[in-house]
């Protein structure tokens, strides 16, 4: 497991020369180059969890390209506006109103692109504040399935909105599905569509893709973040985990298993790193839904991961059941750790066991 984990973190580091080459071809200024490379790595790192491994390098390249063109645009603009630098306030221009109206129209167009049920569901949930549970009752479905449907609808809406706003039709038939997969963070679908390859080939999607991914990060609607610093936070983390898992539709026993695992992992943060966070995310893959727990800290790290994942290995006189115990409680479990940098544990529980 640790080999796998190491492969992951060095995967990002290996991108460095690649990005440097991409950016170096476009920028002369050494310090600007360093900035762009750093920013690209940071964004790629942040989006990594939502990306298939094969899409990592293409995503980084596309991000770098966009950052560079953004830089040019900013420079050009400041050049253009230099003469009115003293003027700190601009009256609302005649175009502001138009921009607002265009945005509203784009939302309407995008909404119209959704199937009627998804559109009604989304409006009921987002605007009227209806619970997934009551929608589920109306549709004869489960809250988990409704939530999954709403999530897909939101992903679709984001894509359609951007298309409507730009008044563009995607150049290839592959564009729309790829953008949807990116928007929804569906890694499996991305792999099937070879999204990484398409991002590199299609200029249109290379512009759109990162915007979609980043808007996902800001729209933290499906992420629940729990800061962990003290004993009480451990209890809070496991209670939040139970709530999120219940929303996904887990049964009683699974709720207990998940919150027990979160309790263990959150305690590790308090015990070894003093400060960190637990992020709970609802995940979808191939029709199954589940909950993903990411626990990260910037603590001392784990020197010997292989031993830490063995039963009975403890560095502080505990029972040494923390990590191996969590592996047994959850379906997927992965630890990444770097000495003096910190530790990240990613674990997932799926609602239906794959047989």
């Amino acid at each position, binding site marked *: 497991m640790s080999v796998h984990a190491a492969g992951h973190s060095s995967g990002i580091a290996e991108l460095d020369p690649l990005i440097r080459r991409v950016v170096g071809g476009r920028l002369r200024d050494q310090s600007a180059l360093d900035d762009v490379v750093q920013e690209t790595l940071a964004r790629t790192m942040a989006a990594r969890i939502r990306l298939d491994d094969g899409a990592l390098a293409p995503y980084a390249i596309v991000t770098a390209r966009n950052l560079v063109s953004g830089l040019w645009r900013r420079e050009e603009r400041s050049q253009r506006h230099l003469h009115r630098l003293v003027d700190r306030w601009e009256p609302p221009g005649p175009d502001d109103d138009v921009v607002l109206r265009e945005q509203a129209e784009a939302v309407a167009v995008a909404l119209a692109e959704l199937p009627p049920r998804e559109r009604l569901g989304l409006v009921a949930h987002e605007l009227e504040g209806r619970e997934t549970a009551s929608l589920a009752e109306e549709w004869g479905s489960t809250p988990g399935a409704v939530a999954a449907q709403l999530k897909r609808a939101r992903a679709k809406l984001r894509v359609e909105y951007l298309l409507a706003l730009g008044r563009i039709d995607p150049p290839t038939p592959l564009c729309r599905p790829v953008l949807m997969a990116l928007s929804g963070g569906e890694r499996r679908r991305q792999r099937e569509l070879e999204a990484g390859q398409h991002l590199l080939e299609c200029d249109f999607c290379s512009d759109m893709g990162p915007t979609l991914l980043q808007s996902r990060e800001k729209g933290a609607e499906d992420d629940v973040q729990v800061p962990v610093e*003290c*004993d*009480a936070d*451990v*209890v809070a983390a*496991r*209670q939040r985990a*139970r709530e999120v898992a219940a929303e996904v539709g887990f049964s*009683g*026993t699974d*709720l*207990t*298993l998940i*919150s*027990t695992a979160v*309790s*263990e992992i959150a*305690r590790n943060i308090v015990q070894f790193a003093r400060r960190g966070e637990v992020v709970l995310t609802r995940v979808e893959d191939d029709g199954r839904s589940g909950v993903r727990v990411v626990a990260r800290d910037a603590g001392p790290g784990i020197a010997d991961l292989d031993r830490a994942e063995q*039963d009975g290995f403890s560095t502080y006189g*505990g*029972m040494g*059941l*923390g990590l*191996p*115990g969590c592996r*047994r*409680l959850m379906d997927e479990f992965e630890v990444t750790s770097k000495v003096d940098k910190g530790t990240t544990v990613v674990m997932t529980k799926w609602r239906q066991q794959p047989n």
Partner: protein
Amino acid sequence: MLVSILRQGDFLIASIHTALDDTEMERFRQDVVTRIGQFRSRGVIIDVAALDVIDSFGSRCLADLAHMARFRGAQTVIVGIQPDVAFAIVQLGMDLDVHTTLDLEEGLALLERLTAGSRTGHSAIGVLGDDR
């Protein structure tokens, strides 16, 4: 009120009413051990029916409590572990090496048997002449 520790003749009945964090759990353990000396209790019931999670720390704390109580001359019975919690404890790989029963009633019955012969005899629960 997070916990309560009640005296019942020769026994202590300690109940946890809500989720406790690690510090509270340790304080609870300490309080129970202190009361055992105070009341010269022969048996302790720990009611954990309200806990929806007993993780490795919780299990260890309960096991330690039972161990400490034994050194103080008292037997401990844990009662009311929820089925899901029991499953999680086993999955986690914990070996909760203490006396356990399904509910309070069975717990008291077990304590009566465990402490038979060492009792001072003025239990409010124990039936007179229960020594057999």
